[in-house]
């Protein structure tokens, strides 16, 4: 890696100030950024670690019943601490990567990176979460804007993510055999006013909602409601691990399994 300055602020305000310098880069758990730096594929002037900011840590239940997770909370902490308040999300966090990744990687880092095969974007979009930053609140529907692209401005920090808790939810992840990211992952959340289905790993446009499935399942929450639905393979990812058609097929299978798991 190239040389860089390193800062470890203890408040959000100090972090924002530090990120104001040219080519500064926020560092969450570093599970994507550090390998990128090691390969010399990025050359930030300074890294601003968000891991010592107390107000960005932890899982809590808000007055309205939603679950708020600090942006610097690790996957392992979410898996443990959200298990009672939002079990499906905790289960998602507990399946990310391996123990080393889960004890370093953070929810804010994952969501800000918006890897097209990452798990958290599906959890956030499927739950209809609100991404809270140092300047504003962004609905998940507006936040995820395509592969590795989000609504975040330069220097903007995800301080927390607020999840409305559905009546039932399930994350069904079909593993890419090498990376064990999602080859296709489907997060299904059933709320009183309808069903949300978010899909990761599959699309060239990154995480997306399968609105036909949402409508069908909102009308009638059973597996058969999906029977006549199909995903158009045209926008699916094709790579070593699966064709467009295979991914389109898996979206349906994983959605069915999510329905089975929540029924």
């Amino acid at each position, binding site marked *: 890696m190239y040389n860089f300055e390193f800062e470890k602020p203890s408040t959000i305000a100090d972090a924002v100030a530090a990120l104001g310098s040219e080519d500064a880069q926020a560092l969450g758990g570093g599970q994507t950024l550090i390998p990128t730096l090691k390969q010399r594929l990025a050359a930030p002037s300074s890294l601003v670690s968000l891991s010592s900011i107390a107000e960005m840590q932890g899982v809590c239940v808000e007055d309205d019943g939603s679950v708020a997770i600090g942006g610097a909370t690790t996957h392992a902490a979410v898996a443990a601490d959200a298990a009672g308040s939002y079990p499906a999300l905790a289960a998602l966090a507990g399946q990310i990567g391996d123990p080393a990744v889960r004890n370093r990687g953070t929810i804010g880092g994952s969501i800000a990176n918006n890897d097209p095969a990452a798990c958290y974007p599906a959890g956030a979009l499927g739950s209809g979460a609100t991404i809270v930053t140092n300047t504003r609140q962004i609905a998940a529907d507006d936040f995820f804007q395509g592969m590795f692209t989000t609504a975040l401005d330069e220097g903007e920090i995800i301080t927390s993510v607020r999840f409305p808790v559905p009546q039932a939810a399930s994350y069904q992840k*079909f593993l890419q055999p*090498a*990376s064990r990211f999602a080859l296709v992952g489907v997060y299904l959340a059933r709320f009183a006013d309808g069903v949300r289905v978010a899909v990761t790993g599959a699309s060239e446009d990154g995480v997306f909602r399968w609105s036909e499935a949402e409508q069908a399942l909102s009308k009638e929450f059973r597996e058969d409601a999906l029977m006549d639905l199909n995903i158009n393979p045209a926008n699916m990812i094709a790579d070593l691990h699966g064709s467009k058609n295979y991914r389109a097929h898996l979206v349906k299978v994983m959605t069915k399994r999510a329905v089975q798991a929540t029924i």
Partner: protein
Amino acid sequence: MPKDSGIGASSKRREDVRFLTGAGNYTDDINVYGQAHVYFLRSDIAHGRITKVDTSAAEGMPGVVKVFTGKDFEGVGGMPCGWEVTDKHGAPMQEPPHPILAQGKVRHVGDPIAAVVADSLEQARDAAEAIDLDIEELPAVMNMKAAAQDGATLVHDDLKNNICYDWQLGETDDAKVNEVFANAAHVTTLDLVNNRLVANPMEPRVAVGEYARATEDYTLYTTSQNPHVIRLLMCAFVLGLPEHKVRVVAPDVGGGFGTKIFHYAEEAFCTFAAKACNRPVKWTSSRSEAFMSDAHGRDHVSKIELALDADNNFVGLRTNTYANLGAYLSTFSSSVPTWLHGTLMAGNYKTPVIQVNVKAMFTNTVPVDAYRGAGRPEATYQLERVVDKAARELGVDPIALRRQNFVTQFPYDTPVALTYDTGDYNGTMDKLEAAADLTGFAARRSASEANGKLRGLGINCYIEACGIAPSNIVGMLGARAGLYDAATVRVNATGSISVMVGAHSHGQGHETAFPQVVADMIGIDESMVEIVHGDTSKIPFGMGTYGSRSLAVCGSAMVKATEKVIDKAKKIAAHLLEASEADIELKDGQFSVAGTDKSVAWGDVTLTAYVPHNYPLEVEPGLEETAFYDPANFTFPAGAYACEVEVDPETGQVSIEAFTAADDFGNIVNPMIVDGQVHGGIGQGIGQALLENCAYDENGQLLSASFMDYAMPRADDVPFYGVDHSSQTPCTHNPLGVKGCGEAGAIGSPPAVVNAVLDALNSGGKAVDHIDMPVSPSRVWAAMNG
């Protein structure tokens, strides 16, 4: 009763204490005072002409000691190939130069162009980025069949084409082979790919070169399976150094799997640069570099045809294979698709007419060489897949079809140049059928089906040729090395023993198993014996460890040397006991006079050898003997494997529910270590069958260049294995009766897995007759829905 020490005991692996407590001493742990670091600038394009390499800016960068390019190596040799294959027309193989750093052209992604030596690795890397490089890109030669056509782009401009050799083994008369097929009652044909693999040992390659100006001695520390071979090749063919002035040390090595047999450019570079820079030079491969610079394995494209008569006897076999050698000839690459592959095409069967055809191709890919099994997995996979397909086509039981065609009389001369000394294929199959509980399969299938899964059973046999082989024979076949091994048994005055061996342990457990043999022969505690390996300054000239040869070849040398030691010790004991040498017996570490109660202990005899006060005058003092052992034949481990899989018909996901191996390794020194070797081999075979795929795009870019895309088998991808080694036909021509067990698992398991998946799909009404490895979920799903 299992023994608790000596031959046949499952002695715990003594080396594991240091490996598991982080106390191993690997090459990267070696840091020499004043060492500099080298960074190799590697080509990021597959094929191109180098039109400019300007290092002037890089040379002025902070910390830079020296920058090397191909020009610096014009006066030295290239990387040699250790086996000259003669093609079917009698011509020698085409053998292009393989420079240490690219000269004129780059030929694969990862081909080193320049090397920067600097005080730190980061400085070397900074300077490498300042090298001004122009490469005129040429079309990448990727497809082997297209590469073989007239007019194809040439990987090496000075060769007449991209075909290294067009080789044939077995029946040379095409008309006779054609006649066998024309008269056959049934012919089964299969086109298949043996997927390219990256070995990925846990420890990447490392080299540290050192030069002592005062004595003009060189030392190379390197991650090697065979330090003496590296020293010989580097001294004699690459750098032109006097062998006695060069020491090669391979300390603890974290896995080899074949890929650390070969002499690599980075080793020669560090040795050369240590003198040129007057500083020790160290290179540690990154994992990314390993993917594009370690020799790859397999990569065959084959067509195999099996002819059967009306009674389902195998009457003819013909194969046509394209074998990818990559851009350059790696050290033993030429032998893999030929003498390690074609010779195994008879398998366990008495097929009378066999013709093997192999075209070995140069392409713009990383060189391909031996990887666990080396040629034998490719042979076994073809044969056992086509036999399985034939059974399905004929509607006969795949085990019965195999049994019907087994070789049952030994020795057996195959039509493809080997003589199997011994074996009992029916007996081994009996063991498999019992151990795998095949009678219970139908019930297990029903249970799986009740859960919505398809269950399949895959059976296969294998035979391999290990302990390669008589040097005079391999010499006639083109080997440029002898294939003996050596051991020196040095008995110390107090009776403890150091055995200096040519074999090299990089995970196999030699440090435990070898002492078991010596201790057993003398009747002393195993802890009194230790082996020394991996340092050319300490060990006799041996050929190292690969091809499941260590115990069969080096172990035999050790037995011979120990016998010499015992013979001499008996002379000393006879003198002490005032008896005739012929009457001296050695048991449990005591020399005694037969029929009397007179005895003298091992330790008293060894002390006398070094303090020869009361000593036979005609005997030299000391107790140290060396033996070289050249085998009379290969050894032929064989076995039968069974794999049970479940296939999820919705996703194509395959899970291995059971895997049972019945192997005949002849006599076994340490059953626990043998089980472990088989476990590891099966794990790698399952990796090849289900997961691993080294893939390039049409421009020669490596698509699976990291663990993000190259799927290694993990613990939860494999089941608990059942292994049965009770079928034992001892090797007839080495003193221990051992055959070798290191590669069997990797040879025997891929066809078992694929056969099982196809059985599962067919049981579900899907008439799928082949899926290429890796049998990934997407490929299974495509086959089911294609």
